[in-house]
């Protein structure tokens, strides 16, 4: 096992330059053709969702159900810049591993040894970046066209030479003129463009843009405003409230080559919560449905024009947005389905071919996976909410789930051989007092909430079963029908992403730092190790020189994680929120 500390890493950047040179010699460029066919390349993990199927599944099976008990730490990297833990998703390409830590720092390491090859720390406009609550998050990068691409919390997109780490271009993409702030999500490359979306659902700004940036020059090719971008959107916000309506697309979406469309989930409207209650179509701070907040938008990849959409939370009254970046392409019986989880604990199954003309997507199915919800009574198969629990001005007890949702922003995984979708839920609630907030100045970018709350344990499940503590679940389901195959309960809701492999394994990085490998068929625990601190970032697998590795980031500290000390006490009441490590395991 090799351990690299930060100081050692800095020294090693020059001292082990030959290692970098050797890796550079091995590395070939990540072309668009390679990205387009990434589902056939299991040795590498070349984009946030691995490939455009969005399955987070690798066919690698050197590590499998029979030998996973022998899995052990191969190397680890202890970086600097880990405030609020590491939330990024590593990438692995041709023997190299790239990953980001907080405040816009990228590390390039030898994938077999962990030896540092280069590092780049973006010079962040701290005042702008720290003007949001999302500081200093960074959730990953994109690689292609000879470069590595990273968005920053101060609204820039940076291209670095993938082999050397030298800056190719560093451009401010997003202006603050309309109250927008920056990027925290990983970009994704589509053809010769880099796509990424803005954060800011809770900020009194407009218009939550999603950008396509020319990969070579760094200039903006197109921009789609998630709110206020077209007349239909503006008409769905009374009193010009779209000017302070938040929106955005802060997690990484996907691309469907068959229809040449970008699929992206959008953020919630501002203000969070609505004091007017049930009369929200006519009154309150943002009268109307508030398109295209808390929606899935499907954009023409070449022009950025709206090809189709579906608003998963019409007039979102709970901050259960659609920003979850997971889009699973599943073809069955001649039908192409796009599966998308919503923060409110709902899985939407879209007809992937119902695009074009800017119309509403057709929904093949929708079902609940959250267990303790009471903000709605349910969802129809057509994706319509049933029995909304509005939250008018005043106090409301035991609203479930809490603002943090039943599904967080990290991804599940899908095993295509078993047709099994592995998903996590978090089951806790809150007491909330909804207020009538003062309307901020237009485009001011101010924090804009309409409530104060206190998180708490649920009292019962939606089916009435009593519950006496907050908890989480790992569920294995048929993604199209929702039929449960197995279910494992976690004492502490898992916040990290999941990994599925051809070795019939599902890897689960735990909130308490325990890293599990489970049997994909049964959910049985086959291997477990203690990583030393909680995880709420990415997990991948890759191969170098015929050896399979599993890489996972650790580190704790975020809005959701902030609930854990109050809900559970130890170990979260003493868990560090300024550390994090890249842990890499092999046989």
């Amino acid at each position, binding site marked *: 096992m090799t351990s690299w500390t930060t100081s050692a890493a800095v020294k090693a950047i020059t001292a082990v330059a030959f290692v970098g040179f050797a890796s550079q010699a091995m590395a070939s460029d990540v072309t668009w053709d390679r990205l387009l066919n990434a589902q056939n390349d299991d040795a590498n993990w070349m984009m946030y969702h691995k490939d455009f199927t969005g399955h987070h599944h690798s066919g690698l099976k050197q590590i499998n159900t029979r030998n996973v008990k022998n899995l052990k730490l191969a190397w680890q990297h202890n970086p600097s810049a880990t405030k609020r833990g590491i939330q990024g998703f590593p990438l692995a390409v041709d023997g190299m591993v790239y990953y980001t830590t907080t405040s816009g720092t990228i590390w390039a390491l030898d994938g077999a040894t962990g030896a540092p090859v280069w590092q780049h720390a973006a010079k962040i406009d701290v005042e702008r970046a720290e003007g949001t609550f999302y500081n200093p998050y960074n959730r990953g990068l994109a690689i292609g066209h000879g470069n590595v691409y990273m968005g920053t919390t101060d609204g820039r997109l940076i291209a670095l030479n993938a082999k050397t780490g030298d800056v190719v271009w560093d451009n401010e993409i997003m202006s603050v003129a309309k109250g927008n702030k920056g990027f925290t999500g990983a970009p994704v490359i589509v053809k010769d463009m880099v796509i990424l979306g803005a954060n800011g659902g809770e900020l009194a700004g407009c218009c939550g843009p999603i950008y396509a940036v020319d990969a070579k020059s760094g200039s903006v090719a197109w921009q789609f405003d998630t709110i206020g971008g077209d007349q239909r959107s503006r008409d769905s916000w009374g009193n010009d409230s779209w000017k302070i309506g938040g929106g955005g697309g802060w997690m990484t979406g996907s691309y469907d080559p068959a229809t040449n469309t970008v699929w992206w989930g959008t953020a919630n409207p501002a203000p969070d919560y609505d004091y007017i209650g049930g009369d929200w179509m006519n009154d309150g701070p943002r009268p109307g449905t508030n398109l295209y907040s808390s929606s899935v938008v499907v954009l023409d990849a070449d022009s950025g024009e709206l090809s189709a959409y579906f608003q998963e939370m019409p007039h979102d009254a709970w901050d259960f947005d659609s920003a979850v970046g997971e889009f699973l392409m599943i073809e069955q019986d001649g039908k192409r389905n796009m599966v998308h989880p919503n923060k409110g604990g709902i899985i939407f199954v879209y007809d992937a071919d119902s695009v074009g003309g800017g119309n509403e997507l057709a929904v093949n199915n929708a079902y609940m996976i959250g267990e303790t919800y009471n903000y709605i009574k349910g969802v129809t198969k057509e994706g319509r909410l049933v029995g909304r629990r509005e939250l008018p001005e005043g106090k409301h007890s035991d609203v479930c789930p809490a603002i943090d949702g039943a599904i967080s922003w990290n991804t599940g995984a899908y095993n295509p051989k078993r047709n099994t979708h592995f998903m996590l839920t978090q089951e806790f609630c809150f007491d909330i007092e909804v*207020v009538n907030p003062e309307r901020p100045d237009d485009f001011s970018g101010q924090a804009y909430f309409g409530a104060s709350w206190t998180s708490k344990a649920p009292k019962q499940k939606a089916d009435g079963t009593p519950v006496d503590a907050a908890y989480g679940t790992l569920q294995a389901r048929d993604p199209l029908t929702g039929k449960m195959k197995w279910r494992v309960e976690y004492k502490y809701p898992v916040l990290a992403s999941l990994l599925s492999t051809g070795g019939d394994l599902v890897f689960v990085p735990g909130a308490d730092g325990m890293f599990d490998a489970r049997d994909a068929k049964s959910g049985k625990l086959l291997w477990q190790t203690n990583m030393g601190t909680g995880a709420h970032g990415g997990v991948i697998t890759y191969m170098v020189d015929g050896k399979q590795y599993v890489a996972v980031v650790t580190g704790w500290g975020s809005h959701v994680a902030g609930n854990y000390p109050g809900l559970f006490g130890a170990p979260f009441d003493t868990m560090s929120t300024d550390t994090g490590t890249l842990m890499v395991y092999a046989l």
Partner: protein
Amino acid sequence: MLSYVSLTSIVRVVFITLFALLLNVSIAHSEEDVTDIAAAEINPTYFKYKENFSVKRLFASRCSWCHQGYGLKAADGPRLSGTDKTKEKVIEQIAYGKSPMPGFRKQLKPWQIEALADYIKALPDVEL
């Protein structure tokens, strides 16, 4: 004319009644939301800037993402009730932030920042 015993009894009854009333007031007081008590103390000072100003409404609009229960419960941000910071230090932190807490000097007027600081300092040292 009342006898000494009767007078003593009356005094005793009055005393017990007063005690019971005080006890009731005390119980009622303890059941009252301490954030409402703190806000009621602070709000009038700022009516000169805004009629019917509500510091809790301001707190909910700007601070609730990280500080739960109007400041009584730690979450992504710390519990604010019982802070040992001086009012001046609280003002400074609201204005300039302390990473990862954003600074609010460009979002809030100076009197709003001061009102929030007064409210936080007025909160009793209790935790939800």
